[in-house]
């Protein structure tokens, strides 16, 4: 895990330095000078020397790593002039809140619709659900978000358009963000459930005369869950880092928009910090998924 984090940091660092555009120049353009104005040589030199940007890349990188390990300080933002850890502490709660709620929606709605659809295989309700989810995976997030605002805010007056802070503000972004995951989880659940229901032991359970709900909840569900949990793990990862568009539309102060803004401003410490945070959360979720595997299927063991 440490190795993964190190590799990710190194990769981000060098990629950020490979993309076109001078760091000092773009930092200046995003803070002091207007976006379009040219930057004078002295200003560039001033910024470069303040942040030691003229040193060779590997020296810059190892200085950063050393700082991070020895003092736990992962740098100060060039643009906001605040510690990166502080910025992350401001933004992470919003991201985790949004991703967490979206995931809960995705699991609840996705799994239940998946099972229902599997039980009704090839009937009307199954077809309807499948078409709806096909819609869900194919609709772009920003369009769904605007549509939700149009319906729930402007027409029904149920929620504010954008903002962050109260529970009302959470509904629309969570709904918009989770739509894709709901559909993905539902489709996997349906397929996995169908496969499980075709197994011998289910037929045996039926023959025993067990009621359907008992068969589904006791025997089929646990076995059908493995692939579903894998998908949930992946979805969680993308929800944590990939909510940029939703964050912009709903003015949601999450980590995704911070990351994208920092990339265009070449705010290297913040980019590093965001990537580090997202990767850590991602690894953590996958660790949990692995734990769940062994829990659900005792045959799986990690050496």
């Amino acid at each position, binding site marked *: 895990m440490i190795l993964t984090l190190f590799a990710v940091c190194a990769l981000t660092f060098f990629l950020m330095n490979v993309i076109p555009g001078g760091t000092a120049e773009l930092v200046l353009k995003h803070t002091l000078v207007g976006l379009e104005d040219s930057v004078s040589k002295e200003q560039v030199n001033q910024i470069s020397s303040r942040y030691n940007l003229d040193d060779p890349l590997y020296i810059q990188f190892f200085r950063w790593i050393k700082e991070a390990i020895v003092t736990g300080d992962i740098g100060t933002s060039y643009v906001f002039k605040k510690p990166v850890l502080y910025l992350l502490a401001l933004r992470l709660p919003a991201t985790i809140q949004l991703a967490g709620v979206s995931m809960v929606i995705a699991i*609840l709605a996705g799994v239940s619709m998946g099972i229902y659809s599997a039980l009704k295989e090839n009937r009307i309700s199954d077809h309807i659900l499948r078409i709806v989810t096909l819609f869900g995976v194919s609709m772009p997030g920003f369009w769904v978000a605007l549509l939700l605002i149009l319906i729930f805010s402007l027409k029904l007056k149920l929620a504010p358009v954008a903002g962050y802070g109260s529970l009302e503000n959470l509904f629309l972004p969570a709904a918009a963000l989770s739509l894709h995951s709901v559909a993905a989880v539902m489709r996997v659940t349906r397929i996995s459930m169908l496969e499980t229901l075709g197994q011998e032991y289910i037929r045996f359970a039926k023959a025993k005369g067990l009621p359907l709900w008992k068969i589904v909840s006791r025997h089929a569900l646990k076995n059908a869950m493995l692939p579903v949990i894998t998908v949930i793990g992946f979805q969680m990862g993308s929800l944590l880092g990939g909510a940029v568009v939703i964050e912009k539309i709903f*003015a949601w102060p999450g980590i995704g928009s911070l990351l994208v803004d920092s990339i265009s401003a070449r705010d290297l410490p913040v980019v590093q910090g965001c990537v580090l945070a997202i990767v850590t959360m991602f690894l953590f979720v996958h660790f949990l998924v692995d734990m769940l595997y062994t829990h659900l299927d005792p045959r799986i063991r990690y050496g």
Partner: protein
Amino acid sequence: MENKNSPLIILLIILLTCAILATSGCSSPEENETDNAVSGMEVTSGLEGASQPEGGSDDNILVLGEMWNIESIDPVNGDGTLICEKAAITETLVGANEDFSLKPGLATSWEQLDENTWEFKLRNNVTFHDGSKMTAKEVKFTLEKVISENSKVASMLKVDSIEVVDNYTLKIKTKEINPILPGVLHYPDTAIISPSSYNEKGEFVKPVGTGPYKFESFDEQTRVLTVVKNENWWGGEVGLDKMILKGISDPNTRAMAIENGDVDFTVDVPYSETDRIDAIDGISVEKYKTPRVYKLDLNLKHEPLEDARVRQAMSYAINRSDIAENVLYNVGEAAAGPFLPTMVWANKSLKPYSQNLEKADELLAAAGWVDTDGDGIRDKDGKPLKFNLLTYSARPGLPPMAEAMAAQLREAGIGIETEVMEMGSIDDRREKGDWDLYLAAYNIAMVPDPEYILTNWYMTNGTDNTPGYSNPKVDALITEARKITDLKERYKKFNEVEAIVYDEQPMIIVAYYGCAIVKKDYVKGYVFDPTAHDYRINADMHIEK
């Protein structure tokens, strides 16, 4: 499949199972943190939470949908425009009239004593929000702070030393003759703040200014800035009790927020939406020009563009009024030169180039560019007249404008390939010289004086002279004018420069940038300030229902 139980019951049970699974299983840590986050939120943002749902329905509170996310509130470090113009917390020494001529601000008068010395007389009835009097000492403190922290302002001020003569008199010595000094002091980053804006360690805490509104709170998490009425404002009565500024960076969201009543005042909804929103009962949209232009830089180092006739032909090929109407939806106007005709120093005799394809054809033919192979693109010595056009998407008007111009230029037989890129990549291409045309939006009155723009754009090696334009006559005129402090004489020289570059077209100024102010009808007393960088909140604004 047989099925004796009703599907509803099954669904219910499954839902329950999943709920248990979800709470005991993989997403539990997230949920716990979510709870923390929510309860943490209530502590920090009780205030906004209470007034948020109804927007500004409270008597005299304005909720403002600002166009950028509010990330910080440090007035000297690049957020001056927000704190000074939009939140009205701070004020500058020098003000500006509608025609961009200067007027007294916190300073009542100023005078150039000798070449490098300026004397400023300060208003003697101004108090900061912390109750202390504003004197020359605090002004010196602010200016020195800005010079040390903000390299852009420092490079424009060229200050050598600042001396406190008495409580209300300040002497500023410059390193070289600098007629634009008073103009620079209109720039919002130079707005005067009290030393109590910083703590003992010298760290910035909050903006303590002199303006009509006092800083109340800034929630870094929700990014909401709240200001309240300054009862003791030197300028008189202040209209609103409170103003809540929320950053909403998406134009579509801003439009829906005002439709929904979440905000009372906002700017720059998508240009294409302005007419629809204006038609809504209770909301009005007003379109203004702001001191910014859309301009097309031409790379004069590339052979065909070296020829002034080709550049003029391009200018004749572009239909500026069509672009203003159909791309900008009249949020903006066809432009003649780099300055708004309302600016006191603008050369008013210049009129925008209007589309004239015959003239373009004449000029191009004279330059040797004719379509010999009949493919619709002109050529000369076997080389087609083709250019790439770079632009970026941070300003929504640019990409569609690039497309529209490309189509118009193609009509005149000039092939254009548009490329929308990220800022860093554009800088890279420009540095390498790998570009022909570059469409951008430039601020033209960072400082209310023509010197800054004309020097940067048209002087040989000027900082923003991207085309690489060089004309000894222009250089001489600007150098002369810079030393003249008599405004009339000064502007006359600059008018000549404007006329020359109008003729030679090293850059094609396409349109003036616009600003769409969207407000509820119950917001009264708003007056647009054309000298503001985006928009300015004025003290007379109030709510009347």
